[in-house]
């Protein structure tokens, strides 16, 4: 809104612009790249002028508009949220006191009588949060389902007679719940169609298990075929697949970096990356989420100062980022990361767990989205769980990297190889996306997803919800803030036959509890409309429409974009 008309793009689409959210510290642009390319000593230029430069320059890096918004938490909401937690904590202590004196019945499982004098297995405070906060709204998680996790899903009804300490199944099934929770981005979670058919054939031939490791005697022909296909799909030399996405990260990063290496990790990286980085024994430095200035500062400092104490140069520097961040819905600023990595000779580890298949005109992930060269990313990691409707993960890259992993990966040596029907599901779904099955079904799904995402996000913003993340990200976090609203939103939505995921602390910062919708290509416009009208209804009921940037549905999409970003970041 502070923008002057002069800087407004003529049509919003054609001219590349880089825009940020309202929290400048969340996202930043590369300063020194500008410095070294531009060679303009004038630092105190006019804000508007500078923005033009930035747009032009980063336009060189970005081939499409990069719009992400993180609307600031309204002050009143923040205060009320803290109060909410305060009240919960006070009551938690009160009830713990009552439980201690046996006034209130205690449902917690007890230590075995003979082991009462052992050192307690859990610290008391460890479980305070679980006992007094999580337990109240526990019914919003682990909801059992009994159908394909497709666009609609059958949820098994649970009831609790003791305030969520135990659940019993009523025997009823809530049919046809609209599924906004599963990571079924391209809708390959199916029990019919070519994927299921070929998986069934493979099951009949091979069975489901392997009972050996890749290096010993568990390397099926299907594994080899799948890996070649993955490499082809990503446009790299070679690839290797692993049985579990989590373990792909946690067991392969230690093979890539070790003592004397530096890992620069985004603060919002997934637990598997954090674990892998820790297990590697390297020095770890964390940069602010998607903040390129911060990343560059750390890179410069690291190279200039070398290792702590000894000042020896680092053996290597590995930057670890994700394609789409699963809790923020943000897309990594990959063009800038690559520019930085090239300038400072660091290596780049890109986790595409959520973005592979779900981003880019051809569904090849975040590299495709920005139109970059896959060879610029040293380690491409991703999972098969989400877009491909299977299980496991892969690492892809240069031939030397994969050869090294084939001989040194923990998983290749010690873990049972992937189940044959799962492998088959990956092969068939990937071929479908690539169009190798001779149809355009895969491509249509990619387009359907992209259309759904833009539509869904736009509508939610129009309704006045605070939505985080990139406008093209299929992960759509909607802010709830207050702890009581987490449970209320989840329940009210299920009551209206919509399954959503709600998340609070510790998965998010304490005041930023949110609901997370995952959009799928399997959602039809009709399904989305129904979901949206219910979200709006529940949003009114629970007063969730926090956004102070009221957007009128009558405005075009271009205007919507510019008005969500309040102030130019670079000023």
């Amino acid at each position: 809104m502070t923008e002057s008309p002069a800087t407004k793009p003529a049509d919003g689409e054609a001219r590349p612009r880089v825009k940020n959210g309202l929290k400048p510290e969340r996202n930043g642009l590369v300063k020194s790249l500008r410095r070294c390319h531009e060679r303009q000593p004038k630092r105190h230029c006019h804000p508007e002028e500078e923005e033009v430069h930035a747009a032009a320059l980063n336009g060189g890096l970005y081939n499409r508009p990069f719009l992400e918004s993180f609307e600031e938490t309204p002050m009143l909401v923040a205060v009320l949220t803290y109060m909410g937690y305060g009240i919960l904590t006070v009551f938690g202590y009160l009830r713990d006191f009552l439980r201690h004196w046996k006034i209130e019945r205690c449902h917690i499982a007890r230590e075995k009588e003979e082991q009462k004098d052992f050192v307690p297995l859990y610290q008391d405070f460890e479980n305070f949060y679980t006992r007094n906060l999580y337990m109240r709204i526990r019914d919003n998680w682990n909801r059992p389902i009994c159908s394909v996790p497709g666009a609609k899903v059958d949820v098994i009804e649970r009831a609790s007679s003791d305030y969520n300490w135990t659940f019993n199944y009523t025997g009823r099934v809530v049919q046809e719940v609209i599924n906004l929770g599963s990571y079924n981005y391209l809708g390959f979670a199916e029990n019919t169609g070519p994927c299921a058919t070929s998986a069934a054939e493979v099951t009949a031939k091979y069975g489901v298990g392997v009972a050996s490791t890749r290096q010993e005697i568990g390397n099926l022909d299907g594994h080899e075929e799948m890996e070649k296909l993955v490499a082809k799909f990503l446009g790299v030399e070679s690839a290797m697949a692993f049985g579990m996405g989590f373990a792909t990260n946690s067991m392969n990063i230690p093979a890539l970096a070790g003592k004397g290496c530096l890992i620069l990790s985004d603060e919002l990286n997934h637990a598997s990356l954090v674990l892998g980085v820790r297990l590697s024994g390297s020095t770890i430095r964390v940069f602010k989420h998607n903040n390129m200035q911060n990343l560059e500062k750390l890179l410069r400092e690291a190279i200039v100062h070398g290792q702590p104490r000894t000042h020896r140069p680092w053996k290597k520097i590995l930057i670890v980022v994700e394609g789409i961040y699963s809790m923020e819905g943000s897309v990594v600023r990959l063009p800038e990361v690559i520019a930085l990595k090239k300038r400072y000779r660091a290596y780049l580890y890109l986790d595409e767990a959520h973005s592979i298949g779900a981003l880019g005109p051809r569904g090849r992930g975040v590299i495709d989205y920005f139109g970059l060269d896959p060879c610029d990313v040293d380690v491409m990691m991703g999972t098969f769980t989400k877009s491909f409707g299977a299980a496991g993960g892969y690492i892809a890259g240069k031939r030397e990297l994969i050869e090294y992993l084939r001989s040194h990966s923990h998983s290749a040596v010690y873990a049972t190889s992937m189940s044959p029907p799962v492998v088959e599901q990956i092969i068939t779904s990937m071929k479908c996306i690539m169009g190798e099955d001779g149809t355009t079904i895969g491509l249509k799904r990619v387009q359907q997803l992209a259309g759904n995402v833009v539509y869904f996000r736009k509508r939610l913003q129009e309704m006045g919800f605070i939505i985080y993340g990139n406008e093209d990200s299929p992960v759509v976090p909607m802010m709830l803030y207050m702890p009581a609203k987490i449970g209320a939103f989840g329940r009210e939505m299920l009551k209206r036959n919509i399954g959503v995921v709600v998340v609070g602390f510790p998965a998010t910062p304490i005041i930023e509890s949110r609901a997370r919708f995952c959009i799928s290509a399997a959602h039809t416009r009709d399904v989305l409309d129904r979901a949206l009208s219910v979200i709006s209804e529940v949003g009114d009921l629970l007063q969730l429409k926090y956004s102070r940037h009221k957007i009128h549905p009558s405005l075009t999409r271009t205007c919507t974009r510019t008005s969500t970003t309040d102030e130019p970041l670079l000023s």
Partner: protein
Amino acid sequence: MTSQFKIATFYLYRMRQSWTTYLKELLEIVHYFYFAPAYHLILEGILILWIIRLLFSKTYKLHETYKLTEKEKEDLIEEWQPDPLVPPVSKDHPSLSYDVVTGHKITINGKECINFASFNFLGLLDNERVKQKALASLKKYGVGTCGPRGFYGTFDVHLELESRLAKFMKTEEAIIYSYGFATIASAIPAYSKRGDIIFVDEAACFSIQKGLQASRSFIKYFKHNDMEDLERMLKEQELEDQKNPRKARVTRKFIVVEGLYINTADICPLPELVTLKYKYKVRIFLEESMSFGVLGEHGRGVTEHFGVNIDDIDLISANMENAVASIGGFCCGRSFVIDHQRLSGQGYCFSASLPPMLAAAAIEALNIMEEDPEIFTVLRGKCKHVHKALQGIPGLKLVGVQSAPALHLQLERSSGSRDSDMQLLRTIVEYCLERRVALTLARYLEKEERFLPSPSIRVVVTVEQTEEDVHNAVSCIQEAASAVLK
């Protein structure tokens, strides 16, 4: 000068004064200051500020000792050359090209073989009933779950499998993981944290080692299956605890052992371990990937084998990739212990759940195991038979107890280096492969293992092998050994 002298004398004088006159004197000091020369006060003021500055500034700042100019920084950045991302792998590294295996009357690189290498102890890999159940589940649920357990990734099949496993093992609760390797590796750090102490057998498998590393606890290795060594360490720890009881009250202690060691093919002395557990108040975690579905009358593993009350073991973990011939792993025990993993087991919370068809296959495998416990007797018989048949091969030494279904054949005399030992054993494996007996070398990451086991050939017993198969295999190995190890 005079004022200062007066102040000093005043202080001396004051000591003899009573408290009642104290205030009055203080006023007098102020009075003297008032009359002191200005330069004096300024000087003293500066001195005081200087002292304050010294007090509050950091004594020594590393980065301030040198200041680099932008140019110097650019040069440093220009000069820095990183190591390659991965070191090159020699072209003839044995693990660069894996053997390609097809089907389950196993075909290796196009050659049909009798399988003595897959951990398919009960022969359920190719079982028709298991396949049918998996197919039915595939028809209902598709392949993937598209979510972790928390977010619509919990299927009714998972709940059924968990309750069936708990029932099978006669424990209160079970929890399933989607990857065998990650099971114990996630379970250990869910309980043991920084500062806690874990006593581990030296022969513990790699996934245990990873769990220990992730837990960041103090790790104490005791000699393999040596209870005296363990007790010595526990006693040492007890003395240590007496010295510092306050710390001991919050330091959790665990023993982590395997039921049937994959690396040494022998069984842990569980009854002794349980005695030690209560004597020294240490919890026991038991990894049963090799023994679940193998040992004991009903295949419940090493607890049943020894007749130990399963409640005395704090946590049992096993994978469903060997005897059960599916994918994934589970932990079982008392709810008090197991339930904690549902929020703290990283491999459980943050990973997509097990594909339902694999869970369904595991349920059917459990059905088969429950319906026909005879299968374990058959397996035991075969193990005994193979164990006996493999004795006395010249140049090779059999490692393992007779109830173990996965044995190791090691060289009797090492040829000097690990590489050449491996090469000798590989020649034997290839010789057998030529004659349609599929064996494999036990593979390890040589640099990563805490205690690297000696090179060996793995011989896996399954119920599917006939007496003739065993005879063939043994004579094959014998021929190979006499040809290779002259």
